[in-house]
């Protein structure tokens, strides 16, 4: 999975760091680019499909509507899958469970990552080092491997997948949070607040947090779409909480065998995931270009 697509924006070693501009203004600016708009439209569309799909589906996800692997017909617009169920309906139902798990995982990672990142940035000492080393350890395993090991031990339950994804996402969010907080921590008004005796936690939540929200939101939304693709990949490998339910990843697995006969069963979820991740890539690229543009403009000042 293209985990590097998000590191594209946040990782200082490969791409320029986000400038210390209020995050939402960065987003607004980047929307001027056509690519960001297209990307947003794609992502929005797919997420919408995942949310309201079940209300639009002509049949239930497990209703047999015809002979297995039949071609598209008036009855089943995209044909039927390996058990004779309607492909279109299953695609419409198939995003929900993935989306729910991805949102939970990202939310969890956001809370944990922000806490760790801000504390690390603020401490500027051994605590900072320890925390970041801990994050390095978590990042030492490829995300999918971590998820695989977790599922192998406990089983493909929803909470296991959520926690595993959260564990791989937290360090990356922590890094972004820390990166965004560091320049602020250096500023005078922080020192002034400390001198005035403002409690630490107040400084953290009152001063640091609001200023880092911008880049964090950007990172979190990129991570969300990445998590969706990762959960779908896990389902494709056969590891999902409900193997019988409609799920984009599981559908690809179940229908891969009949690609030569009835491609839509596997091709449709593939296209859906492809559009989602393309959209994410475009948004990320748009933001990176805007940031680079800001930097270049700054450099020329």
């Amino acid at each position: 999975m293209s985990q590097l697509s998000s590191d594209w924006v946040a990782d200082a070693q490969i791409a320029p760091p986000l400038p210390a501009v209020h995050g939402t203004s960065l987003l607004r600016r980047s929307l001027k680019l056509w690519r960001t708009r297209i990307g947003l439209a794609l992502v929005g569309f797919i997420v919408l499909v995942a949310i309201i799909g079940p209300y639009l589906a002509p049949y239930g996800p497990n209703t047999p509507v015809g002979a297995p692997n039949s071609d598209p017909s008036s009855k089943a617009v995209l044909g039927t899958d390996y058990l004779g169920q309607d492909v279109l309906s299953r695609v419409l139902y198939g995003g929900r469970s993935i989306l729910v798990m991805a949102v939970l995982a990202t939310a969890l990672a956001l809370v944990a990552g922000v806490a760790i990142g801000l504390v690390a940035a603020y401490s500027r000492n051994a605590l900072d080092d320890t925390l970041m080393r801990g994050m390095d350890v978590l990042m030492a395993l490829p995300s999918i491997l971590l998820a695989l090991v977790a599922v192998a031990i406990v089983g493909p339950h929803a909470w296991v997948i959520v926690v595993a994804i959260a564990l791989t996402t937290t360090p990356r969010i922590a890094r972004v949070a820390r990166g965004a907080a560091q320049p602020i921590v250096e500023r005078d008004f922080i020192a002034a607040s400390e001198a005035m005796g403002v409690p630490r936690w107040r400084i953290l939540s009152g001063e640091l947090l609001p200023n880092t929200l911008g880049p964090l939101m950007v990172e979190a939304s990129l991570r969300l779409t990445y998590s969706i693709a990762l959960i779908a990949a896990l389902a494709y490998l056969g590891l999902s909480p409900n193997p019988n339910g409609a799920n984009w990843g599981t559908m690809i697995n179940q229908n891969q065998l009949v690609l030569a006969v009835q491609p839509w069963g596997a091709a449709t979820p593939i296209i859906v995931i492809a559009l989602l991740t393309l959209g994410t890539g475009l948004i990320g690229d748009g933001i990176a270009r805007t940031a680079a543009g800001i930097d270049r403009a700054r450099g020329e000042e």
Partner: protein
Amino acid sequence: MSRFRPTGVWGFILRRLLLGIVVLILVSILVFLATQALPGDPARAILGREANPASLAALRRQLHLDQPVFQQYLTWVTGLLHGNLGRSLEAQEPVSTLIGSKLVNSAVLVALAAVLSIPLSIAIGAWSAFKREKAFDQASSNLLLALAALPEFVVALVLVILFATTVFHVLPAISTVPPGSRPWNNWVALILPVLTLMIAVAPYVARIMRASMIEVLESDYVEMARLKGLPERTVLIRHALPNALGPVFQVIALNLAYLAGGIIVVEFVFNYSGIGGAITEAVVNHDLPVIQALAMLIAALYVVLNLLADVATILVTPKLRTRL
């Protein structure tokens, strides 16, 4: 050359090495502890219907389940360091025997992908930089962006749909390596998996090459070369290219590390008999020793390659100082 202190560089390498070892130890603890949380009795799970008190006790002794956790961990780790990767629960054979040929298969795949994609992406990146903002640059940039965004299993399956099953029927949809034979016995079957991995790696290398090349092309060093009246081709190949390669090595190492995780899904798509397929199968079979061994293997690979990436950065950074 006299810009950095050798002790500084070696000191850095040493520190990163130590850090890498610490990380590996922590990962091993993580992997081992996680697998200790197994609900139920592994011995009973293995013996199934043939379980009786005597055979259970014997198997528990064999698996060291009667020892305290810390001792089991030490036994396992020392075993790892001696090349003893444990015994598969499913096959009742040493893990090293089982994965020997699979390791070779995966290595062949990754090596082919690397050897083919890296020169290609460097070339694309360099040319894009040279013909900046022109047609080739725009087109390749957008294409590479799209390819970078797609998850590997999507890329793999799209390739399968295009070339194997639905649009054209020229390549095999599956690349199983039968037991006893080698990947190159059926090289046609390697085309699609290698192509998938190449697509996973190429965009980043091309991108960084382009960025680095642009910077070098605008540098005084290259200006000087041009002013000297050297032909453009010589300037490009002899002067610009070598200096632009610096940051590329780091990205290459990072991508190879990333491939360590990427082959898990790619091998599944193509039913390729490598360690990626082996770990997925082990997960489905709850074959913990295999999972532990392979997880450590992949993690070690990842850490080592990341370490190489960091070292490469430091070593070549001075060369980027082209400003006179």
